[in-house]
């Protein structure tokens, strides 16, 4: 339950060795580089390397080629690949492009022609009613014809133009338009064209390749279109084959270019002075020996190691170190935010509490085992952390299912087992022990809150933040107050022994409240720092602000505690949902009952499982983390070349 120890590394050398050094850092897979901006000392003459990457254009070119071929290049071994300079690489890409040029051109032309025919098909579909040969229409000498579509709303305005010399024939109608044509004498075409333009008539040009009557033209067009589709398909197959033959070369050139491009980009992380470079970064302490060994053969390069806090400008990155059980749960911690390098790694705590709470809220032996199995399969197939989480919480759910006596909703299935071990009935009947469940949920919440506050005290003491450790609402004062109220309340109400004596109230309730109220000045007093004006307004503002903050703390105690009621609520709701499934199955016919049971269980596992998972995460983040955890660290990210192509 800790954070990987780091070492601060400073690498210096001659500029000529920079690329080599960066490549070795990438190969090490353990070097987290700090950008030169963070560590540069401009006053002493250090500068950042500002160079234009010569490989960018050629990288764009290979992406462009890949897009053209609709192929996503993969990482390949390029050790035997000779072209090195940008020009050589570009020439190589051009040589590949040439092979595909003709085929691509054919496909492009075919696609364009098909697009025209499809547009024509759309038009001809609307004009199928024309029983006259198009060529006869177009060959009229004294009359012009215009094909197109007229908005339906403006069609009614045509009546206004009764006296104008045109005839409009509508052959089809859709949601917005009348499709048709109008005939106009040659000498009147300008006036009539203006009229139709004012009515937003959209003229559509009938392509030259349209022949015959409306129906014939439509059919011929469709036939040719089908033929072209077939031809396009064949061309694409040919392209695919050609691609398969050249795939290896494309992958090699892509890998080399990506490698050269990305490693060149890394140069921006170096600062330079007088022909020498300086790189700063962090490596895990356990990798120090192997890292140093990488530079053995570089005589002009020196690697200097120092403690991670040596440079106050740099915050060491955080790499979580977890045990096998907790490792998958680091996903949740990362979701919230990584701890700082000197912070606390809560992953194991999350793993335990998450598993526990999920098991409580989703207790069913059969469903738990199914979830565990599903998680196992997911992990095996996809190597996904979620799969591992499901396995753990599934088992927890199964164990609590043993407690509740529930197996796929059958509440009596485990009775023989209980009798065998000497119990007369199941350990916890959820419906008969509703109060126990709810009170138990609160009790769990109280324990978790107290544990969280204790963790916060320990963490803050280590960080020497005495204000928060001792005087804050999550410090000793808050703990005393919270515990006193709870103990006093339980003692008074349950045990009928009134602990709320004046002394009790003054020293264990009022005093902690006052301490919390004055936590800021008390903290400053303890750390012997000078009082600084944090805000404006003086005493009045201080009192007003802290009064409302105190109110917020008190409210927070109540709401956070009550929030754990949902744990009990979900226990009941899970049992209730399974009861519904059982009732439906009992009411159904014999054949349908098993199907209802299976589907019902699947539905509950999926839906309620997801809801419970989210609710537990909410409890973790809001009720627990807010007490002690600050995810203000940044991740340890070793530099590497990413061969994932950005082809879309």
């Amino acid at each position, binding site marked *: 339950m800790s954070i990987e120890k780091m070492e601060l590394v400073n690498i210096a050398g001659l500029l000529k060795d920079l690329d080599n050094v960066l490549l070795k850092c990438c190969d090490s897979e353990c070097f987290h580089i700090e950008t030169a901006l963070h560590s540069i000392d401009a006053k002493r003459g250090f500068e950042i390397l500002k160079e234009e990457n010569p490989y960018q254009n050629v990288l764009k070119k290979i992406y462009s080629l890949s897009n053209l071929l609709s192929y996503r290049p993969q990482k390949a071994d390029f050790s035997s690949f000779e072209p090195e300079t940008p020009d050589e690489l570009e020439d190589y890409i051009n040589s590949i492009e040439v092979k595909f040029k003709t085929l691509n051109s054919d496909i492009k032309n075919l696609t364009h022609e098909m697009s025209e025919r499809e547009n024509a098909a759309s038009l001809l579909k609307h004009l199928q009613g024309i029983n006259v040969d198009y060529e006869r229409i177009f060959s009229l000498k004294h009359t012009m014809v215009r094909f197109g579509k007229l*908005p*339906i*709303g*403006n069609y*009614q*305005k045509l*009546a*206004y133009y009764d006296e104008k010399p045109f005839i409009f024939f509508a052959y089809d109608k*859709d*949601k*917005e*338009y009348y499709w048709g044509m109008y005939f106009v004498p040659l000498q009147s075409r300008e006036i009539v064209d203006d009229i139709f333009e*004012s*009515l*937003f008539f*959209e003229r559509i040009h009938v392509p030259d390749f349209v022949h015959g009557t409306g129906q014939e033209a439509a059919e011929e067009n469709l036939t040719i279109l089908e033929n072209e589709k077939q031809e396009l398909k064949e061309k694409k197959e040919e392209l695919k084959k050609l691609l398969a033959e050249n795939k290896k070369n494309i992958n090699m050139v892509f890998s080399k270019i990506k490698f050269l491009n990305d490693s060149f980009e890394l140069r921006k992380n170096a600062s330079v002075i007088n022909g020498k470079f300086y790189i700063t970064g962090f490596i895990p302490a356990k990798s120090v020996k192997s890292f140093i060994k990488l530079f053995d053969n570089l005589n002009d390069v020196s690697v200097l190691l120092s403690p991670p806090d040596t440079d106050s400008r740099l915050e060491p990155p955080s790499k979580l170190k977890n045990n096998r059980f907790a490792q998958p749960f680091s996903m949740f911690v990362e979701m919230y935010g990584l701890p700082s390098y000197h912070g606390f790694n809560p992953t194991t705590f999350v793993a335990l509490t998450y598993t526990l709470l999920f098991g409580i809220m989703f207790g069913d032996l059969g469903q738990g085992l199914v979830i565990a199995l599903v998680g196992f399969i997911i992990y095996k197939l996809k190597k996904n952390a979620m799969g591992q989480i499901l396995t753990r919480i599934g088992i927890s759910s199964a164990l609590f299912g043993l407690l509740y006596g529930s197996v796929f909703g059958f509440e009596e299935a485990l009775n023989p087992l209980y009798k065998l071990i000497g119990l007369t009935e199941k350990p916890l009947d959820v419906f008969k022990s509703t109060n126990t469940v709810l009170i138990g949920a609160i009790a769990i919440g109280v324990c978790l809150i107290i544990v969280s506050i204790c963790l916060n005290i320990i963490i803050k003491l280590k960080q020497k933040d005495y204000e928060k450790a001792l005087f804050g609402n999550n410090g000793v004062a808050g703990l005393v107050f919270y515990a006193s109220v709870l103990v006093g309340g339980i003692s008074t109400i349950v045990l009928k022994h009134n602990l709320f004596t004046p002394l009790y109230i003054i020293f264990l309730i009022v005093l902690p409240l006052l301490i919390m109220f004055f936590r800021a000045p008390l903290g400053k007093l303890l750390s012997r720092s000078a009082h600084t004006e944090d805000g404006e307004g003086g005493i009045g503002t201080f009192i007003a602000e802290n009064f409302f903050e105190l109110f917020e703390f008190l409210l927070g105690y109540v709401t956070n505690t009550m929030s754990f009621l949902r744990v009990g609520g979900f226990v009941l709701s899970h049992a209730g949902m399974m009861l519904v499934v059982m009732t439906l199955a009992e009411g159904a016919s014999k054949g349908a009952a098993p199907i209802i049971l299976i589907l019902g269980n699947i539905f509950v596992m999926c839906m309620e499982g997801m809801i419970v998972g989210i609710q537990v995460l909410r409890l973790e983040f809001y009720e627990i983390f807010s007490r002690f955890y600050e995810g203000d660290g940044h991740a340890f990210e070793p530099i590497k070349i990413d061969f994932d192509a950005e082809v879309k």
Partner: protein
Amino acid sequence: MPDNFSLNATIAKARAFYGKRLKKQDYDELLHKSSVSEIAEYLKRNTHFSEELEAIDTNAVHRGFLESILKRYNFNQYARLCKFQGLNKYPFYNYMLVSMEIQMVVSCIMHINADASEDFIVSVPSYLISHASFDLLELSKARKYDDVLKVIKKTPYYDVIKGETPDTDGLYDCTQIEHKLRCYYLTWLRKIILKDFSSKVSKEIISIIDIQYDLINIINGFRIKAFSGSSAEEIEKLMLPVYGKLTKAKAHQLFEAKDSSDYIERLKHTFYGQQIMHFDDNMTQSNMETDIHRLRTKYAKIHLRASDNAPVSLYSILFLFDVEIQNITIIIEGIRYKAPVSYIEKLLII
């Protein structure tokens, strides 16, 4: 009339429509388009106009047709809202139709005056033809004033303008005709509101109408002062008979301004001027009208959000629909004429 509680459904519907309106991000996107086709495509793919534009070929759509489709959409929204709870049976809810009919009559007369009566048909919205209380197609065939009167004979507009006579050039005073019809409209509207609604609802709707028309009067007063330098009395004759938060005395003071700059200065001391200063403390002659429209929009939004009366919600949302269409039209025109984005942006009312 359904009771107030039931009419909450119309209020909710109006607010739901408001939620679908174009946001600032949409306007930013539209401002950076370079053609009418791109604008049409954006509206089709990303806004509440998508269903309306579904059958449109955005590559070939005419600018005017696009604008007419958007206006038609608004009109249909209005019809939907009125039909939703059978409100279209009540005269008040036909106010938009009455207003549009008056616009058509005035437009027709203006075309006749300009000897361009044949072009009037182009400006007739096709969606209005079947809803109008008179035959718009017949109106578009009118070539003289008497033809117009013949078409509108069975409507209340006839009595309002039948007595108008042409000047020595044979032209009719369109300003006067429009003024008379608008005054008729406002009188009719007030009467209908008082008749159809309870006193509480009437008071609220009349007050927002008064505010809107106060602001229209301010704009009209400014234009008259700027372009003809008329006296306060002459301006008052052309003002609509509405006094909301701009009392008669205050309006008179405003219209007494020496010139347009003085008008602006006096405006700053009125209630509305003070309201404008909250969001634009640099009101000038060039941006005054835009500021007034912004204020009108602001009031409409407040009334839509805050009122629990259906007529108020309806009135406000329909105003906001119009503003949205105006904004889109401004952008389309701006892009057509290659105006700078910053210039177009200043004209938008968001």
